[in-house]
């Protein structure tokens, strides 16, 4: 048992901290996406440090992972500083290509990802295929010298700045629903690809995701990732990874500390808010639950040294997303009516950030397999309980 970072790991953490101190400007801070020129430039610097391709072979533009927990440490520090994160380009795209893609595909895309030369849109969800992702219908036909894609995708968050779409498509309409799915890579400027914004609930009106339409989009044959009809397996692998590695719990810790700091300083009617016994009790309960989030994340990291965490990742995901909303919810409770003041009011505590968190954190509870889906994963894979939608199980049939 060993809970401390090694000397090397601690050294790397300090190096990241120093880097952020020097390079992270206000312009960059505040969002996880690489969607503005300033943020692109910032992530370019991470790439120049060799921090995007850590652990991948050098022949693909990777850099020797200096130490075991480097990726985790980097993500934690980025989240604590509210900087853009390494995120899905490496976590989903590079990992999946590296483990399943052709040599040609690795040569073409991995170096670009590690140099931050391309942004990616994960294009999975459809109007009729949300939680039930395997019900996706986006059609992909083999036309001899190319694939022909037709379909509609929804909640494609990065579509408006992406260079490539990473699209889950149906390549075998007759197979069982999760057995006829493949992944293809599509150029964002392909003919027939269009998108329209879906504006998210929130004060600024600037948070967006997108609906994407593929209308007879031609895709070269070599852009199908790995084997045909194995796409759902790749998706699931990537989701296990996404549930723990992409967004560190540190983001919630940072937000909780920010709210606690606000409570500590707040005074109403000459009384310190933090003297209120109800506030103290509720924040203590939540501080404890926040700590459990860091514990579950540590547990995942320990597991990750040996295998991809799956049920552990589901625990991490379910807890983290739940706690994220609890933080925003309690923040607004503590603020009373000031809690519902939006960005733009000089009276809005913390510039109204917690209102937006309250409204949008529900998104985290449904994204990347939501809280309830994650719990289903735990029930099915860890506890050995049968599919609620499958044929009836009798005693001794369950694992």
């Amino acid at each position: 048992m060993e809970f401390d970072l090694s000397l090397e790991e601690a050294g790397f953490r300090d190096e990241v901290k120093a880097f952020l101190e020097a390079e992270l400007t206000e312009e960059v801070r505040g969002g996880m996406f690489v969607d503005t020129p300033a943020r692109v430039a910032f992530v370019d610097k991470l790439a120049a440090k060799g921090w995007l391709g850590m652990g991948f072979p050098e022949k693909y533009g990777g850099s020797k992972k200096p130490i075991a927990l480097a990726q985790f440490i980097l993500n934690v520090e980025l989240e604590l500083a509210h900087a853009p994160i390494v995120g899905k380009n490496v976590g989903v795209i590079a990992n999946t290509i590296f483990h399943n893609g052709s040599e040609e595909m690795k040569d073409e895309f991995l170096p670009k990802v590690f140099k931050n030369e391309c942004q990616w849109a994960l294009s999975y969800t459809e109007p009729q295929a949300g939680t039930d992702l395997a019900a996706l219908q986006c059609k992909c036909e083999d036309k001899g010298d190319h694939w022909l894609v037709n379909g509609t995708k929804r909640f494609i968050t990065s579509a408006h700045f992406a260079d490539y779409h990473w699209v889950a498509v149906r390549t075998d309409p007759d197979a069982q629903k999760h057995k006829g799915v493949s992944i293809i890579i599509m150029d964002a400027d392909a003919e027939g690809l269009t998108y329209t914004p879906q504006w998210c609930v929130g004060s600024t009106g600037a948070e967006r995701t997108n609906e994407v339409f593929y209308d007879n989009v031609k895709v070269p044959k070599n852009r199908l990732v790995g084997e045909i009809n194995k796409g759902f397996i790749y998706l699931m692998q990537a989701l296990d990874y996404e549930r723990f590695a992409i967004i560190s719990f540190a983001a919630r810790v940072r937000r909780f500390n920010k709210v606690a700091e606000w409570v500590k300083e707040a005074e109403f009617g000459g009384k310190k808010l933090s003297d209120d016994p109800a506030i103290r009790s509720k924040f203590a309960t939540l501080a404890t639950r926040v700590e459990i989030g860091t514990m579950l994340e540590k547990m995942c990291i320990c597991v990750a040294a040996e295998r991809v965490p799956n049920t552990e990742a589901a625990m991490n995901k379910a807890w983290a997303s739940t706690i994220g909303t609890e933080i925003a919810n309690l923040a607004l409770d503590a603020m009373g009516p000031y809690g519902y003041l939006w960005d733009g009011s000089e009276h809005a505590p913390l510039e109204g950030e917690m209102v937006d968190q309250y409204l949008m954190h529900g998104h985290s509870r449904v994204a990347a397999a939501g809280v309830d889906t994650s719990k289903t994963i735990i029930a099915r894979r860890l506890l050995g309980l049968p599919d609620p939608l499958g044929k009836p199980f009798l005693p001794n049939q369950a694992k």
Partner: protein
Amino acid sequence: MDMKYTEEQKQLQDLARRYLEKECTIDFVRNLEKKDEEIGFSKEMWASFAEMGWLGLAIPEEHDGMGWGLVDQAILAMQMGRSICPSPYLSTAVIAAEAIVLGGTDDQKSELLEEIIGGEAVYAFCFQENTREFGPKTVALEAKADGDNYVINGSKMFVEFSKGADKLLVVTRTAGKVGEESGLTMFIMDSDTKGITHTHLPTMARDRQYEVKFENVTVPKSAVLGPVGDGWTILNKVVQKAAVIFSAYCAGTAEVMHEYALEFSKERVQFGRIIGQMQVIQQYLATCTIEIYGARTIVLYTAWHMDQGRDMLDYVAKTKAFTSHCVEHICDRGSQIFGGMGYIEETPTTLHLRRGKQYQLSMGGMAYWEDIVAEKMFGPVTA
């Protein structure tokens, strides 16, 4: 970073699991519950604990203990919690042993620790006063110096095993007044010292708790353990360790309750299918699973850091508060999964149902520890 047990830790866990599952069965626990006048634990089992080295597990080697750490005690306590094992392990091998190691004179150490390690002295911990609050500030039991003696007057509440114990570790006030952390002094005395009476308090867990009254109890100055008037400097560390071990015990109880409920959900058929196939049951069980993994991790994390000699008060408080919540929540939720059978005395899990809530309320409940968390975040209340 890794959470893996060492070979020795695995062996400790396996031995404890095997021994307790064989000896500390539901029937065994029920039997101890029934005998109202008995001591509430098995002396035979206690002797086995001593033989297996459990009573001296964390006592330094220089005092003939095994010199292991808090994390090892936590691993053992989780197994005890799984078997809801009624034993004075916490008050003896954790609280008394640690208090003596930290506060004892050389003579006290050499005499008293050996007795503990050998299973010859069982201790009860007389700390909690007749109040719903917990902690050093609540201590009112008065000890007055009188020549070469101290005379003790007052009472303690919720003292587990006090009647069956050989000795009492008694926390008194020799200076200052209620509401102050300083002024405390610890004593060690025989549980049948003249002037001490034990009145049984019936509890929902049917364990052996007592109100202990001290009427002109006269003990020599040599009965003092640790500094006079400054007992909290030692007791503070002892209580923190005890809280972590109690948390480990709670995590074990929660874990086994969850296993009972899971097993039942795979056997009970309604609507032509096992109830474990229903989404709501799956969600209940999965939620509890997450809490158990979180509880186990924070117990090990906190204990491991304390073994490195670090100040972990904030984490101790969170560990105690969270496992307290967990054991209550999971024992309640698990009972719900059993449906009507969850509330029939003969069902094994009613033992856990009766313990979950009691454990949550014990040793400062959640309130004392959450106050500590709040103080760390916001500082003390100013108004």
